[in-house]
């Protein structure tokens, strides 16, 4: 079953490119939507079903494994991918660019699905690369100067990450004689603090920190998020960075290294610095997408703080915030796409009072902002609460206080965003602005609904996930 998550997008990719683009435009859009949303629905029902869903499979020689953690990522990528497809259908103007966008989204889907289901360090690295290459091209899809600049920064830092990860893999192979997670775990446990094994772990962690855009390796992220086309920003911020960096890190920690005290210290430090740096850098940004990009660094810092607690509660909270961040940040980028499309600018100083003419975008953006700031009873509140609880219960009081204070800063810059863009009296030159197209409004409503639903029905959701 699990190999279908790789083969279906691959076969669809081949079939779509066998026929002329013009004839395939509508079919390509709806089949891609079906693949993304079908994957999300399938993973959703698997998570909430009572099936025993640990299915190791080796059909076609593809050693893929299907567990709840994998399903969690499969669901998130399906959901965010479907949203990005809808936004792309509206915001990408040229037919050939839309067609290329769909193809590259399918390649990304193969990459992320691979990341979700592999149990081998080299294969994990390979699928991270598949995702990265598709993403580079997606960012540069419209070939303008800023996009090329953004993608070059991402590419250069990704090459550094690749070098670090490959060096780490070579060291692991030298010691363990294999790269499967169980073999690596046994080698790490038997190493007794060997310098080279520790170096291998440190190198791989640094590589993943770069991929995840965490402090101090975050230099590429604001430019890449800002320069990318609107739909690509949704996909990039919603899932790509988190899958390549954060999810791969979670898999690496839970399956290979475990949570030893030095690793927890590194995670806590990197997490706290990312939370604070991202939040402080987001203040005063004029470009709406750049502000959201810095905010993403901060929110990913929270996820790392949860992992740094090293307990079951911490890991649960980190993954829960992973999902919530995909929802509210994906949605905020959808709102940014709607505003950019209607106003023709991303400069917040040129906006004001847009909620009057764009009530759905304004309301959904407010809900997502409040969720990001951790205001009850929205979904973001619960995940942040559990991260802070996990930190407090493990005696990391300073980090817990930093997390609370950074949340106040988050509330501050998101309220500033709301005030500048949506609140108040509408500017004269913006009086003719209308609500965005259904392709942008619908995903914003769906993501808002999920944010509110998860927040209000949190006890039920938690019970089902933990089971």
């Amino acid at each position, binding site marked *: 079953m699990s190999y279908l998550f790789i083969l279906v997008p691959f076969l669809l990719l081949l079939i779509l490119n066998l026929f002329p683009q013009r004839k395939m435009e509508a079919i390509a859009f709806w089949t891609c939507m079906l693949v993304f949303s079908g994957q999300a629905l399938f993973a959703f029902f698997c998570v909430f079903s009572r099936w025993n869903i640990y299915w190791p499979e080796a059909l076609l*020689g593809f050693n893929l494994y299907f567990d709840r953690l994998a399903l969690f990522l499969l669901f998130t990528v399906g959901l965010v991918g479907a949203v990005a497809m809808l936004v792309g259908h509206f915001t990408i103007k040229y037919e050939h660019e839309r067609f290329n966008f769909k193809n590259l989204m399918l*390649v990304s889907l193969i990459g992320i699905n691979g990341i979700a289901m592999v149990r081998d360090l080299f*294969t994990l690295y*390979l699928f991270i690369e*598949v995702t990265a290459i*598709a993403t*580079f*091209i997606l960012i540069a*899809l419209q070939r303008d100067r800023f996009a090329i600049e953004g993608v070059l920064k991402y590419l250069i830092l990704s090459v550094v990450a690749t070098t670090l990860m490959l060096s780490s893999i070579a060291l692991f192979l030298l010691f363990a004689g294999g790269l499967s997670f169980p073999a690596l775990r046994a080698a790490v446990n038997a190493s007794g603090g060997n310098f080279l094994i520790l170096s291998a772990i440190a190198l791989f962690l640094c590589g993943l920190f770069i991929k995840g855009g965490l402090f101090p390796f975050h230099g590429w992220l604001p430019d890449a998020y800002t320069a990318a086309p609107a739909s690509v920003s949704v996909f990039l911020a919603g899932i790509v960075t988190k899958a390549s960096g954060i999810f791969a890190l979670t898999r690496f920690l839970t399956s290979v290294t475990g949570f030893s005290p030095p690793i927890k210290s590194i995670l806590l430090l990197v997490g706290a610095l990312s939370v604070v740096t991202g939040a402080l850098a987001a203040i005063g940004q004029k470009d709406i997408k750049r502000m959201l990009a810095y905010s993403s660094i901060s929110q990913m810092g929270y996820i790392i703080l949860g992992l740094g607690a090293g307990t079951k509660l911490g890991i649960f909270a980190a993954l829960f915030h992973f999902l919530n961040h995909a929802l509210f940040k994906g949605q905020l980028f959808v709102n940014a796409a709607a505003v950019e499309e209607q106003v023709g600018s991303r400069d917040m100083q040129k906006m004001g009072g847009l909620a009057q003419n764009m009530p759905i975008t304004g309301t959904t953006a407010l809900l997502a902002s409040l969720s990001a700031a951790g205001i009850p009873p929205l979904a973001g509140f619960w995940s942040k609460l559990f991260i802070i609880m996990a930190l407090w219960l493990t005696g990391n009081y300073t980090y817990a206080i930093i997390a609370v204070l950074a949340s106040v800063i988050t509330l501050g810059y998101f309220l500033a965003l709301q005030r500048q863009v949506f609140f108040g009296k509408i500017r004269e030159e913006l009086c003719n602005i209308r609500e965005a197209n259904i392709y942008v409004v619908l995903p914003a409503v769906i993501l808002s609904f999920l944010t509110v639903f998860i927040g209000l029905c949190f006890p039920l959701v938690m019970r089902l996930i933990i089971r």
Partner: protein
Amino acid sequence: MNIILVLLICMALAGLWAVMTSLLLRAAIALALTSAILTIIMFRLGAPLAGVFELSVCAGLISVVFISVISLTHRLPLQEYLKRRQSRISRFIFLPFILLAAVIIIFFIHKPILVTLPAMGTITEVRSVMWDVRRLDLFGQIMVLLAGVYGVLILFKGRQ
């Protein structure tokens, strides 16, 4: 002097040339040369299949992709090129000192690393590993190449 050591120094020099040269075509050739020297090292270390892969994929296929992409770019005007070359050279002014410091550090902290290397596999075993155990990796590599070529096509096709 050990022949491997000589080859390693040559490989490092070719790598440096790839990074420092201001012409893309020369950089691609230098990279192919680096891969070719690495292939010789792999053959001398008794890993012929890895050598063949290195030669065919890195020195061969990747160079073809690079040169195809470079053929789609335009040359800078001579004045602009000379100006940029001058500024490039100034960027590497500290490189000799960094390299010297690295050599000194490695010389002083160099210690033999005690690891038990796995037994050398036969070519048949390597093929079996590649095809039977690591088939998903082959698929992943195909996807990487496919995405790369697709990217080149869509980013450069019709570009003025």
